[in-house]
């Protein structure tokens, strides 16, 4: 999408709004909307970092669509673990896509933001832990399946990130690619909050930003071991309707 920039919009940058873990159900419906009506003045795109619903039902997904669709900017989402709870993730994806929200799962999308091509690759991700304190594909089938799930997602996210044909890249996940943005969470649960495998594929491509949620008691800012800026945008972490990140970018020479 591309429209005339507002007069005070800074040049040669993209402005990315993001929030995760909105956990919408009928009791939350309407709370975010007032802060979203003028989002086009503040941002070029809105990212939703998973846990859009409480129980992962189609009804809750319709509440998410009511709350976050038809904004003045494109909305791009990944699902989170709550969105899988009722085994209705495919139905949820369909409801959101039908409302105009782009749902990524090991896939990517590119938007034209005033001449700069902004590429976003996204996936739910999964856990497993971080350097020196991580699970392995070893032992019981359940343990192998746990880590294999993370590895497969990470590999396919890496491919999606790599394949984006764009000027500015962003990685969007629900689970964390670095432990730095988990600060505040109990150390004992880090393996359930993210995986170094996600960080590893992010570092191979070095996007301008990696955005995640899931860690409600974590910290907003961190970096991957490879130096990629990471932002935990879980709603209880950012404590506002969304955060806005401005990323410098140059349109590719024609």
């Amino acid at each position, binding site marked *: 999408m591309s429209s005339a920039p507002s007069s005070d919009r800074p040049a040669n940058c993209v*402005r990315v*709004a993001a929030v995760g*873990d*909105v*956990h*919408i*159900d009928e*009791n*939350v419906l309407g*709370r*975010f909307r*007032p*802060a979203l009506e*003028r989002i086009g003045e*503040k941002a070029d795109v809105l990212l939703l970092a998973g846990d859009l619903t*409480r*129980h992962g039902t189609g009804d809750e997904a319709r509440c998410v669509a009511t709350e976050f669709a038809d904004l003045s900017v494109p909305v791009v989402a990944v699902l989170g673990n*709550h969105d899988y*709870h009722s085994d209705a993730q495919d139905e949820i994806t369909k409801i959101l896509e039908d409302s105009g929200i782009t749902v990524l799962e090991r896939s990517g999308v590119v938007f034209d933001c005033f001449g700069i091509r902004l590429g976003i690759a996204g996936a739910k991700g999964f856990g497993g832990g971080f350097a020196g304190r991580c699970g392995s594909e070893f032992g019981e089938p359940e343990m192998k399946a746990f880590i294999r799930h993370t590895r497969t997602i990470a590999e396919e996210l890496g491919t999606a990130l790599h394949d984006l044909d764009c000027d500015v890249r962003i990685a969007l996940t629900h689970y964390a690619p670095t432990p730095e943005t988990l600060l505040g969470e109990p150390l004992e649960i880090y393996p359930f909050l993210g995986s170094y495998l996600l960080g590893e594929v992010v570092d191979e491509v070095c996007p*301008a*930003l990696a955005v995640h949620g899931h860690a*409600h*008691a974590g910290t907003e800012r961190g970096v991957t071991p490879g130096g990629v*800026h990471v*932002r935990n945008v*879980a*709603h*209880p972490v950012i*404590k*506002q*309707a*969304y*955060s*806005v*990140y*401005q*990323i*410098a970018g140059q349109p590719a020479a024609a």
Partner: protein
Amino acid sequence: MKTRTDVYKESQMQRVLTEDERVSEQGIRVSRLEENTFALSGEVASSKRREVIEQVVAEKFPDLTVEYDLGITRVHEPDEVEEV
């Protein structure tokens, strides 16, 4: 040896908060203050959610004293833009 009468209650409470379909909250911290007295802290998405949590915990753990420090996450527009 005198044993605590409330062993495992923190874990049970944590699981009720997550697994009871009326709650389904993973972001709430349970801490033990003293024998049979616990605190729940964190942020939830609506006042209705806070009410439900208090009701479910009272129903499942009628013998425990529970102190609540549950805020409702604010949803105002951001004032600042961070350059990254």
